[in-house]
C-alpha cells in the first residue's frame, strides 16, 4: 500500500451525487426531452434484407403526403457532402447508396410534422431490393465462396503503433482491419513441456441502454446545432464538420444527461441524418430511435478466439499464440479499435516470454459491432482465464497456484515498453478467494446436483489511447465554483467525482461546485467518455485546473494582503493566513470594483507519446477485475445456479465509494447475464430473432445470485487524483470465465462457448 494520504475531506466520501436531486425528482433532462419550436420528427426506413443491392427507391408518394417536409434518399445527398462516417474506416453511409448490408440498415429517412406522418410516409416508399449472398457470421464471411462485401476499399487509416504492434487494412477478403502484436521469439514454444490449443467462442450482446439513441439537429441560419445523446461530443463535431464540410466553429454539440451508453453512444449514430434533414427542411429535426432500432444500431463483438499456449510442467506460462476473429458486423464502426485491445489484452495479467497475436475484424451482414463495456477485454478474458484454468487442471495444478505463479508483480511492465501494472494482483486474488472460501472448499457432489467454485482475473488497460483531456475551473466572487469539462454523465457518476476533486483542492464543499452543461463552444476539448478514463485522465486535467485556480486565487490574495503566498491556504472561499481568516469576496470587490471578478484556470492531461510503448503511449492505468463464483449445477436439467458471486476491482482510491460500488455491481451483473443467458440470437440468414424488449432478456433483480457482493479495493497505486483509477469496466471482465471454471470444478466439463446454458451442460454431459 502507498503512503497514507493527508486527511481528505471531500474525496473518499460517498457524497450525495450532484445529479441525485435531478434524477430522483424527474427534473433531469435527457435527449428525448428536448424540444425546439417548429421541430420536425424523423423516422428511418430500414432494410428488410441482410445483404442486397438497392435497385430502386421511389419516394414520390411519400413526398406528396401531408406534413412531410423532407425525404432523404441516396438521390438527395448533395454532391459536396461526404456521406460516410466511421472511426478508422469511413465505410458507413448516412443512408444506403447502392447496397444494404444488414437487416436494419438505414435505407432512407423522412422528416414530418408528426411521427405518424413520418411513419405513413415511410410506408409509402417503394424500394426494390436484389438479394446478394449473406455472410451470417464469421465463418460464413471467411468462406472462399463468399464474395467480398466491400469491393471498393473505403477510406481508412492505420494509426502509428509502437514496439511490437502493427496493423493492416484489408489484409484479406472480408477482413477490414487486422491488428497484430508480438514480442519474444516463437522458438520459445520449442522449450515448452506442453503446448495446448483451445478455441473459445464469445457471444454478442447489445447495450440495452434505456434511453434511446436520439438527436435534435437545428441547421438553420448557417450554423449547425445538435443536441445529442452522445459520449464523445468533440469527435462527433469533427465528424459533422467533415461530412457536411463546415468549420468546426459553426457546429455546436450539446449533451444533456445521457441515459446509459456502455460504449454505444459514440461518434455518429442519428446525427448525420438529423442534420441532413434539418438542412433539407430548414427546420429543427428530432430523430429518436425505438429500442428495437437500438438493437440494430450497435452491438458488442462476438468472437472466435484460438489460443495456443506453451507451458512448463510446473505451470510456468511461456508462450502464447492467439488468433482472434471479431464479428464486426456490417460496418467497421469501432472494430479496429476493439481489435487493437482484444489483441493486446489476450495475454492477460501474466508474464510471458513470447506473445504472438493477430486480431481480425471480420465483416458480416449483421448489425455493426462497436464499443461495448470491456472493449475486447471481455472477449480476451473469457478465453485467457478459461484456458489458464483448463491448463492448470490438465497439469494437475490448483488453478489458484497456477495464477499466483505467473501473475505480473506490482509495477511490472505488462509488455516490453509498457507501463507497469498498478495493482498487486495477488492481493486481489487472495481477497476474492478468501471472500468465497475457495481454498479448502468441500462439496458433497454425490447427488445429481453438484457444486463447484471458480476464480478468474479479468484484465485490461484503462484510460484509452490518444485521449487529450482539458478542463477549466472558475470561481466567482462569492466563491461559487464552475467545473467545465467534456466528460459526459452517462451514469458513472463522473460529474460528482470530478467535482469532489475540485472541492478537495479548493478546500470547499462539493455542493459549491456546479458542473457546466456540455456545449462544445464553451466546454474545453476532450476526446470522449470511454475507456474508464473519467478519473485517471480527465480527473488529472481537472485536478491541474483546480490547482492552477487555487494558485491564482492565493497569488491574488497574497498581493492584496501583502503577505507571502506560501503562508496562505484556501478554505471555502476564505483565505487562511495563520489564525486569520480573510473572506475572498471583499478582497475581490476592493480590487475589481462592484461587479467583482471570476478566477479561471485550465488544466490539461495526456500521456506522452512513446514509440517504445506498443500502443504509442504507455497505458494510463490497468483495470483489473477479480471474480470468484460458487455454482450449483443440476446434472439432470443442466440448470446452473450461481450461489455466490464475489467481484472486485481496484479503484486505487475511491473518490466516491458508493459510486464505485455501483459501477462494480452493475458491471458484474452485466457480465453474469452474458455468461448465463443474455445474447443476440441471429439465425443463419442474418435475421435477429430476439431483437425486441420482450424476447431480448436482460437481467432483472431476481437474477442476482443469492449472495452477491462486490468489494472495492483501494490499493492506492492509481495515477489519477489521490491515487485513483477507473472502475467502470473491471468487474464485467472475469465473470464468464469464473463461472466456466466453477462449472468445470463442479461437474468436470468445460464449456468454451457463451452463454453457459443448461442445454450446453446436458450436451457436454452426453445427456441431450
Amino acid at each position, binding site marked *: 500500500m502507498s503512503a497514507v494520504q493527508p486527511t481528505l475531506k471531500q474525496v473518499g466520501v460517498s457524497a450525495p451525487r450532484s445529479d441525485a436531486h435531478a434524477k430522483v425528482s424527474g427534473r433531469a433532462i435527457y435527449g428525448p426531452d428536448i424540444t425546439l419550436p417548429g421541430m420536425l420528427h424523423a423516422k428511418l426506413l430500414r432494410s428488410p434484407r441482410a445483404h442486397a443491392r438497392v435497385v430502386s427507391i421511389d419516394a414520390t408518394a411519400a413526398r406528396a403526403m401531408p406534413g412531410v417536409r423532407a425525404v432523404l434518399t441516396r438521390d438527395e445527398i448533395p454532391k459536396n457532402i461526404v456521406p460516410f462516417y466511421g472511426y478508422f474506416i469511413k465505410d458507413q453511409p448516412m443512408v444506403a447508396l447502392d447496397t444494404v448490408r444488414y437487416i436494419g440498415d438505414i435505407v432512407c429517412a423522412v422528416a414530418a410534422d408528426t*411521427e405518424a406522418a413520418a411513419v405513413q410516409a415511410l410506408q409509402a416508399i417503394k*424500394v426494390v431490393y436484389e438479394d446478394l449472398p449473406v455472410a451470417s457470421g464469421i465463418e460464413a464471411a471467411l468462406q472462399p465462396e463468399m464474395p467480398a462485401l466491400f469491393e471498393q476499399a473505403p477510406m481508412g487509416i492505420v494509426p502509428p503503433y509502437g514496439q511490437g504492434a502493427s496493423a493492416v487494412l484489408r489484409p484479406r477478403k472480408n477482413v477490414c482491419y487486422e491488428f497484430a502484436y508480438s514480442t519474444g521469439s516463437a522458438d520459445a514454444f520449442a522449450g515448452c513441456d506442453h503446448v495446448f490449443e483451445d478455441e473459445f467462442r464469445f457471444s454478442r450482446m447489445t447495450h440495452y441502454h434505456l434511453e434511446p439513441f436520439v438527436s435534435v439537429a437545428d441547421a438553420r441560419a448557417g450554423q449547425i446545432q445538435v443536441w445529442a445523446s452522445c459520449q464523445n461530443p468533440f469527435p462527433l463535431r469533427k465528424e459533422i464538420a467533415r461530412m457536411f464540410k463546415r468549420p468546426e466553429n459553426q457546429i455546436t454539440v450539446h449533451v444533456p444527461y445521457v441515459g446509459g451508453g456502455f460504449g454505444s453512444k459514440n461518434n455518429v449514430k442519428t446525427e448525420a441524418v438529423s442534420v441532413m434533414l434539418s438542412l433539407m427542411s430548414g427546420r429543427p429535426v428530432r430523430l429518436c430511435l425505438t429500442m428495437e432500432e437500438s438493437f440494430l444500431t450497435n452491438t458488442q463483438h462476438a468472437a472466435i478466439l484460438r489460443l495456443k499456449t506453451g507451458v512448463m510442467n510446473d505451470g510456468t506460462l511461456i508462450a502464447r499464440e492467439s488468433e482472434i476473429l471479431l464479428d464486426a458486423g456490417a460496418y467497421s464502426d469501432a472494430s479496429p479499435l476493439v481489435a487493437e485491445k482484444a489483441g493486446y489484452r489476450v495475454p492477460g495479467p501474466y508474464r510471458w516470454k513470447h506473445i504472438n497475436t493477430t486480431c481480425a475484424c471480420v465483416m458480416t451482414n449483421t448489425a455493426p459491432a462497436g464499443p461495448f463495456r470491456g472493449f475486447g477485454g471481455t472477449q480476451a478474458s473469457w478465453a485467457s482465464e478459461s484456458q489458464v484454468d483448463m491448463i492448470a487442471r490438465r497439469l494437475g495444478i490448483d488453478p489458484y497456484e497456477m495464477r499466483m505463479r505467473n501473475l505480473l508483480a506490482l509495477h511490472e511492465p505488462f509488455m516490453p515498453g509498457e507501463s507497469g501494472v498498478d495493482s498487486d494482483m495477488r492481493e486481489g486474488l487472495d481477497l476474492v478467494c478468501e471472500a468465497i472460501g475457495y481454498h479448502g472448499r468441500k462439496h458433497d457432489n454425490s447427488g445429481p446436483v453438484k457444486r463447484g467454485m471458480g476464480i478468474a482475473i479479468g484484465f485490461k488497460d484503462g484510460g484509452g489511447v490518444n485521449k487529450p483531456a482539458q478542463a477549466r475551473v472558475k470561481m466567482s466572487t462569492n466563491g461559487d465554483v464552475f467545473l467545465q469539462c467534456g466528460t459526459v454523465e452517462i451514469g458513472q457518476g463522473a460529474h460528482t467525482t470530478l467535482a469532489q476533486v475540485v472541492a478537495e483542492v479548493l478546500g470547499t464543499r462539493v455542493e459549491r461546485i456546479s458542473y457546466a452543461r456540455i456545449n462544445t463552444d464553451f466546454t474545453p476539448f476532450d476526446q470522449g467518455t470511454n475507456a474508464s478514463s473519467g478519473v485517471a485522465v480527465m480527473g488529472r486535467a481537472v485536478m491541474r485546473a483546480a490547482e492552477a485556480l487555487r494558485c491564482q486565487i492565493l497569488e491574488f490574495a497574497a498581493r492584496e494582503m501583502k503577505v507571502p503566498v506560501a503562508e496562505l491556504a484556501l478554505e471555502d472561499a476564505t483565505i487562511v493566513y495563520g489564525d486569520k481568516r480573510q473572506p475572498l469576496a471583499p478582497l475581490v470587490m476592493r480590487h475589481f470594483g462592484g461587479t467583482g471578478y471570476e478566477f479561471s484556470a485550465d488544466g490539461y492531461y495526456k500521456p506522452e507519446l512513446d514509440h517504445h510503448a506498443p500502443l504509442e503511449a504507455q497505458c494510463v492505468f490497468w483495470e483489473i477485475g477479480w471474480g470468484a463464483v460458487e455454482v450449483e449445477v443440476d446434472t439432470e436439467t443442466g440448470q446452473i445456479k450461481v450461489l455466490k458471486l464475489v467481484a472486485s476491482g481496484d479503484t486505487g482510491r475511491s473518490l466516491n465509494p458508493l459510486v464505485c460500488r455501483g459501477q462494480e455491481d452493475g458491471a458484474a451483473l452485466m457480465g453474469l447475464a452474458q455468461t448465463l443467458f443474455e445474447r443476440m440470437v441471429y439465425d443463419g440468414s442474418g435475421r435477429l430473432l430476439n431483437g425486441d424488449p420482450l424476447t431480448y432478456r436482460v437481467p432483472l433483480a431476481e437474477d442476482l445470485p443469492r449472495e452477491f457482493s462486490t468489494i472495492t479495493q483501494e490499493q492506492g497505486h492509481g495515477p489519477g487524483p489521490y491515487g485513483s483509477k477507473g472502475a467502470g469496466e473491471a468487474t464485467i471482465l472475469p465473470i464468464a470465465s469464473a463461472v466456466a471454471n466453477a462449472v468445470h470444478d463442479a461437474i468436470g466439463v468445460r464449456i468454451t462457448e457463451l452463454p453457459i446454458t443448461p*442445454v450446453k451442460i446436458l450436451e457436454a454431459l452426453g445427456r441431450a
Partner: protein
Amino acid sequence: MQLIPSAGLVPTSARSLPRFKLYEPRSIAQALDALAAAANPVVLAGGTDLVARFNEGLSPGEMVSLAHVAELRSIAADGVTLRIGACVSHDAGCTNAIVREQIPGFSRAWARIANPRIRFNATLGGNLMALRPRYECSLLLTAARARLEFTTSAGTITLTPQDLWAGHAPARSLLTTITLDTADLLWYAYERSMRPLITLATGLRRRPDGLLLSCAVATEYLRPVLLELEMDTTDLPSIARNSREIAKNVFAQLPGTFSDPVATRAYCLAAGTTLLARQLAGVAHA
C-alpha cells in the same frame, strides 16, 4: 418493427398511430355490436400487449374497450366448474377467494407469472389472445384443460387453448369466459424455475378408473404442447415413487418438431422428463 415487403422495416409505435375511434360498450352484446360495426377493430382489455402490436405495425380503425363490461370481470363457481371472466386481471384472479379455494394449485401458479406490475394490469384473456409463447397463461390453462368461450353474435363457441393457437377463434368474436373443471382436479403444479428456456405445468384429474395426467410444456419460442397420460391408479404415493417412469412415458409423446433455436428437442426431452418427475415426486405431499 413493421415489415412492409415493398419498402422495408418501419418503426411503427403507439406514437405514430393514425387516428382511431373508441367504443366503450357496457355489455357483451354492445361489445359485439361494436366489433361488427367497426371496419378494423382491436379489443382493449388490460392493454399491456397492445403497445407491442402497435410496434409490430397494428393500426386499428377502432378500439373496443372492455373496461365497462362488468360481466367480463366476474368469477363464479358451482363446485363443478369455475368460470373466470376474460377481463379478470391476474392479481384479481389469483387472490380471489373462490379461485383459491376451488383450484389452489392453479391459483398459486397464477400468482407467480410475469411480475407484480403486469399482474395488476394484464388480464387472463389478454394474455391468451396475445398468442405469445413467452406469456404464461396458455401453458397454465392447457395443463388445466381449460375451455375458452368465445361469444359471437350467433352464439357461443368453445375452444381449447390449442385451437386458439391454430387460429380458430372466430372473427369479430369476444373471448368472454375461461372455464375450468374443478371437482376432479386433484393436484396442479407449475415449474418455472428454468423460464424462459423451458416451463411446464401439470394437472392430475380423477377419472372413473384412475387418474389423467395433463402436462403442458413450452419454451420461449414454442407454444405449449399438451402431453397426457391415463393412469389406472389413484395412489399418489405410488405415483411419487414411480415418478421417473411416468414422466418418461409422458415425454415419449413430445412431438418430433418440438425444438427451437436455443432448446433442442433432445434437451427438452431430457430436462422436461426430469422436471416432471420431480413435480410428481412431490405429489403425495399436496
